[in-house]
């Protein structure tokens, strides 16, 4: 929304206030000013000229040889404007005039004809960018009169983001802003000039029925005889052009002008094409041709304006092609109506027909504008000097809701919301400036909410308090910290786990935290060979292949290996994020997962060692999160393509499965990494349930020195370390204080399929230093245990 200060000055005098102050106060009290633009027009020396002769130039079919009468002088000029014609009055710039583009007009030869001066388009005058035709002046203007009488050389536009006006339908027109500025600067607001419509009450009522008061609470119209096709007064045209609107003719410009002035869209029907108005929904699917010539697909609920049985307008959105006023129209039915915001919004959003009218109706225009719009339009007609005749009374169906809506607000509410005492007289004054009725009655503020403020906008005491405070000035409110009893602050266990995981993985194991989108790309899933089964899906996805919401984190993490391996020959990444699974009754189960991927290019050690280094990180993580040891159990067949038996393990806490980890098998590793090793893991953080401060018990320190004995044991690789551990754990001996696994050796000199596992047994007694005999006794017992279990030493 652009606000013309030229227009504002009709209603409030703020010319003495610097523009930057006006903009700043609007920002602080009403809505954020995005920009301040200056309009500079080149009107000096430009005069009203009448085309008294207009001839074709045979050599140049697009040009005319024109004689322009400027009162005291006549000029011959060559003109290419499509709307140049005999009888037209338009701005004329004689030789020597400097136009908006900086060019000084000189006498020239065009297509073999002398051309002295030019007839001007709005763009040439700097009124707007519109240059497709001449600015048409009303025929009543005297030839040769300086244009500056009607078009001043300067205007200032204040631009406001429409989004910040969503809740203020009254600010979709200049008068609303004039009222704000009057309140902000405590200056009088001049009333909007309107005709008294009751003077036409003796005329016949126009045939009007509203079938759907739910969606059309109020509809008004008045039948007029008027020269619709003549140019509108220049004051109207200059203001519409300043806002970037092009101008057409009196009747069309007038309806636009009313809309930009008070926010109320009105519509002019060709009075010969309509005879009786009915407002009703379409009732069945169908089509309608709007005045832009487009055929629109409509739904049964879409609201239409009907001429008897023929639809003539898409209510509140756009008129119809058939009933549009044309330059020759002399009979006009002027509609000023009120439609339900959500109805208009639904239709206009669906058709992607976001017209100025629709944008205003969907904010919820107040019904009183039905009347004000009509009364203002007739006043503008009078002001235009064009003759017109009113053929019907102002006919209204529905409630105009003209009466102010009463509301009582305890003064305590005002002070409580502000957090300090607000002077009552000042509050009352502010409300009155904004058009409210306001009276201080003891401990109560009695308010009448004016009809021009919509019910959506102002209906509860808080709404009124906001009106007071924003004009009073938030900068006048003294900050004060809230008091309140101290209460225990419970820890967010889930978040704490997330942050602990970050600290362990990033702080101790060199992982880099990344984040991915929550959707999965079908193309990538196909490459991975992963069919996620039933997932939640987006109705309007960011891309057609990205409809599925992730049920696990890993696929998107694996997708990062290829791009990043270009930069690093090894890296570890992890992600903490939500995963989603559909539930019965259109529900969703959402959980927080932690997943990680470690990449090493070939030649960076073996895969087993690689996996063990990541498993070490998970073991640390388990210790931090739970105080217990996580268990890793060989995984079986699985629907996840990255879970290949022999290449993955389940991770358990006690008996609860909390995740999985593994190495990508060579086939999938090629897909994911092209070349190199990939280790992965994924944990369900919510499944990891443990006291947030794990219980730890002190163990007494050994008083006497410990001894140790190392054993290298041969064991089948396929059976694995776990099963060897299981056997060894059965060996009990009073001297054992700890069994430590040192390393595994696979290689030359070992029996086929076996590896050497080296353990260190730490031996101690609580009350003395061990003797050689005692140690030997342990050794004998252990060796015979190994023999019983078929385990040989290397």
């Amino acid at each position, binding site marked *: 929304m652009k606000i013309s200060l030229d227009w504002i000055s009709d209603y409030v005098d703020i010319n003495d206030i610097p523009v930057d102050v006006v903009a700043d106060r609007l920002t602080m009290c009403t809505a954020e000013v995005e920009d301040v633009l200056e309009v500079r027009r080149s009107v000096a020396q430009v005069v009203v000229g009448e085309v008294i002769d207009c001839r074709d130039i045979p050599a140049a079919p697009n040009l005319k040889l024109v004689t322009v009468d400027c009162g005291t002088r006549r000029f011959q000029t060559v003109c290419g404007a499509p709307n140049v014609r005999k009888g037209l009055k338009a701005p004329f710039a004689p030789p020597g005039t400097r136009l908006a583009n900086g060019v000084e007009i000189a006498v020239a030869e065009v297509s073999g004809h002398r051309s002295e001066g030019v007839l001007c388009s709005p763009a040439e005058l700097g009124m707007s960018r519109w240059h497709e035709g001449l600015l048409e002046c009303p025929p009543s203007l005297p030839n040769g009169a300086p244009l500056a009488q009607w078009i001043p050389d300067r205007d200032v536009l204040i631009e406001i983001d429409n989004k910040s006006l969503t809740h203020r339908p009254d600010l979709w027109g200049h008068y609303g802003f004039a009222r704000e500025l009057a309140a902000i600067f405590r200056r009088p607001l001049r009333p909007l000039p309107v005709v008294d419509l009751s003077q036409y009450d003796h005329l016949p009522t126009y045939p009007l029925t509203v079938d759907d008061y739910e969606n059309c609470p109020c509809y008004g119209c008045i039948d007029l005889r008027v020269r619709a096709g003549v140019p509108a007064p220049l004051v109207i045209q200059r203001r519409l052009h300043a806002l970037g609107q092009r101008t057409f003719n009196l009747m069309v410009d007038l309806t636009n002008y009313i809309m930009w002035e008070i926010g109320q869209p009105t519509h002019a029907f060709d009075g010969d094409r309509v005879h009786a108005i009915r407002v009703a929904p379409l009732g069945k699917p169908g089509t309608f041709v709007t005045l832009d010539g487009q055929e629109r697909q409509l739904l049964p609920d879409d609201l239409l304006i009907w001429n008897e049985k023929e639809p003539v307008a898409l209510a509140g959105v756009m008129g119809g092609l058939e009933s549009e006023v044309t330059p020759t129209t002399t009979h006009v039915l002027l509609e000023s109506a009120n439609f339900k915001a959500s109805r208009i919004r639904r239709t206009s959003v669906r058709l992607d027909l976001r017209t100025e009218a629709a944008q205003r109706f969907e904010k919820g225009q107040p019904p009183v504008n039905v009347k004000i719009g009509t009364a203002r339009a007739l006043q503008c007609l009078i002001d235009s000097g064009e003759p017109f005749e009113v053929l019907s009374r102002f006919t209204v169906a529905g409630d105009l809701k003209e009466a102010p809506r009463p509301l009582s607000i305890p003064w305590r509410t005002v002070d409580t919301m502000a957090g300090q005492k607000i002077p009552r007289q000042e509050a009352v004054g502010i409300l009155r400036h904004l058009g409210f009725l306001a009276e201080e009655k003891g401990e109560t503020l009695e308010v009448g909410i004016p009809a021009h403020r919509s019910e959506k906008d102002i209906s509860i005491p808080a709404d009124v308090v*906001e009106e007071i405070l924003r004009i009073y000035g938030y900068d006048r409110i003294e900050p004060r910290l809230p008091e309140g009893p101290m*209460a225990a602050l419970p820890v967010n266990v889930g978040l704490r786990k997330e942050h602990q995981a970050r600290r362990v993985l990033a702080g101790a194991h060199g992982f880099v*935290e990344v984040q991915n989108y929550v959707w999965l790309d079908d193309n990538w899933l196909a490459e991975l060979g992963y069919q996620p089964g039933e997932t939640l899906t987006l109705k309007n996805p960011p891309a057609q292949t990205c409809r599925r919401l992730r049920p696990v984190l890993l696929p998107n993490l694996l997708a990062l290996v290829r791009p*990043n391996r270009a930069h*690093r020959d090894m890296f570890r990444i992890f992600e903490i994020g939500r995963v989603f699974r559909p539930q019965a009754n259109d529900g969703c189960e959402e959980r927080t997962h932690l997943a990680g991927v470690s990449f090493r290019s070939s030649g960076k050690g073996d895969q087993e060692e690689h996996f063990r280094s990541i498993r070490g990180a998970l073991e640390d993580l388990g210790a931090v999160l739970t105080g217990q040891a996580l268990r890793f159990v060989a995984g079986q067949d699985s629907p996840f393509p990255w879970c290949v038996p022999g290449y993955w393990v389940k991770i358990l806490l006690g008996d609860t499965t909390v995740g999985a980890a593994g190495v990508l098998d060579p086939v999938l590793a090629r897909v994911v990494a092209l070349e190199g090793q990939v280790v992965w893991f994924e944990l369900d953080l919510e499944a990891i349930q443990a006291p947030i401060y794990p219980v730890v018990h002190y163990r007494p320190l050994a008083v006497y020195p410990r001894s140790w004995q190392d054993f290298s044991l041969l064991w089948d690789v396929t059976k694995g370390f776990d099963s060897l551990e299981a056997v060894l754990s059965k060996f009990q001996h009073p001297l054992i204080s700890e069994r430590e696994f040192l390393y595994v050796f696979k290689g030359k000199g070992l029996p086929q399929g076996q590896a050497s596992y080296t353990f260190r047994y730490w031996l101690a007694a609580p009350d003395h230093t061990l003797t050689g005999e005692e140690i030997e006794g342990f050794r004998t017992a252990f060796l015979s245990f190994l023999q019983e279990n078929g385990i040989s030493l290397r």
Partner: protein
Amino acid sequence: MDEILEQLRRDVAAATDSKQVEQVRVKYLGRKGIITTLAKNTDFSRLSSEEKRSFGQRLNALKSEAEQLLKEALEKAKAAEKDLVRKVAGLDLSLPGIDRRLGSIHPIALVQMELEEIFQGMGFRVLTGYEVELEYYNFDALNIPPDHPARDMQDTFWLDNGMLLRTHTSANQVRALETYGVPLRAIFPGRCFRNEAIDASHENTFYQLEGLLVDRDISVAHLIAVMKTLLSQVFKREVTVRLRPGFFPFVEPGFELDVQCLICGGKGCATCKQTGWIELIPCGLVHPKVLEFGRVDPNIYSGFAFGMGLTRMAMMKFGIPDIRLFNSGDIRFYEQFPAAF
């Protein structure tokens, strides 16, 4: 005797290590040393008592002079020998460290962790909601009925099952009121989604941090004070803030909170687009209808709510120019944010 002293000085000067110094000591002060024998070989009986006294004095002076010289020489030699040993070890402590295992934490998580600490210090509990949310909590319960134009402001990702990806963390307000009742002080950090085209300053996936305080008689004055305190903690210095009207259906009155530009101090610069202010936190007093949706009596309780863009805070804090980097998956970006706890 003077000659002996001169000779000794020359010998000491010639000695290059402690061993040679010792040899010099033996030569002069050893049992058969020059000074020792000088005393022994003197026949004191032939000297007068006057001569005896004078000789004795001179001899003692010579001895202590010699001892002093040798002591100093020995210390010097030993120090030189230590230096030599250390030089041979040749430690270069200026080399960079190794075995570093520090990874990195996502920049948004870093900012989130910091803000959680600040808010917890101010008595706010930290709550998380759902990324896949019901339309009710994301819109209706926030006083945004269907077809409300405010829904235009937030292009929503809808699910086929009728749910949606939450468009703002405000969706937690009514959930929190329902669950925890009043009085309540809570923040809700989390991921939000809006279906818009992505460019350097627009993302369809981003983080917010919503805050809610509900108690008796909560006012605009409280809101300003809490925001000022908070922002002073965030920016580690006093900040100047201002409120101006802003519209959000779930607050009344609604505000945009601007902070005076920290780069130029309000004079106007490129960062604040010459305005002197940076729009930072949309906020307002909780709309009575929202309290009612949360089963709180608006006649007794009032509150304020505010929303911070965590992603935007991270961009400001770390000087990140392109919002797309956060979800880029490029570790060269993430690695720049060390795991600072």
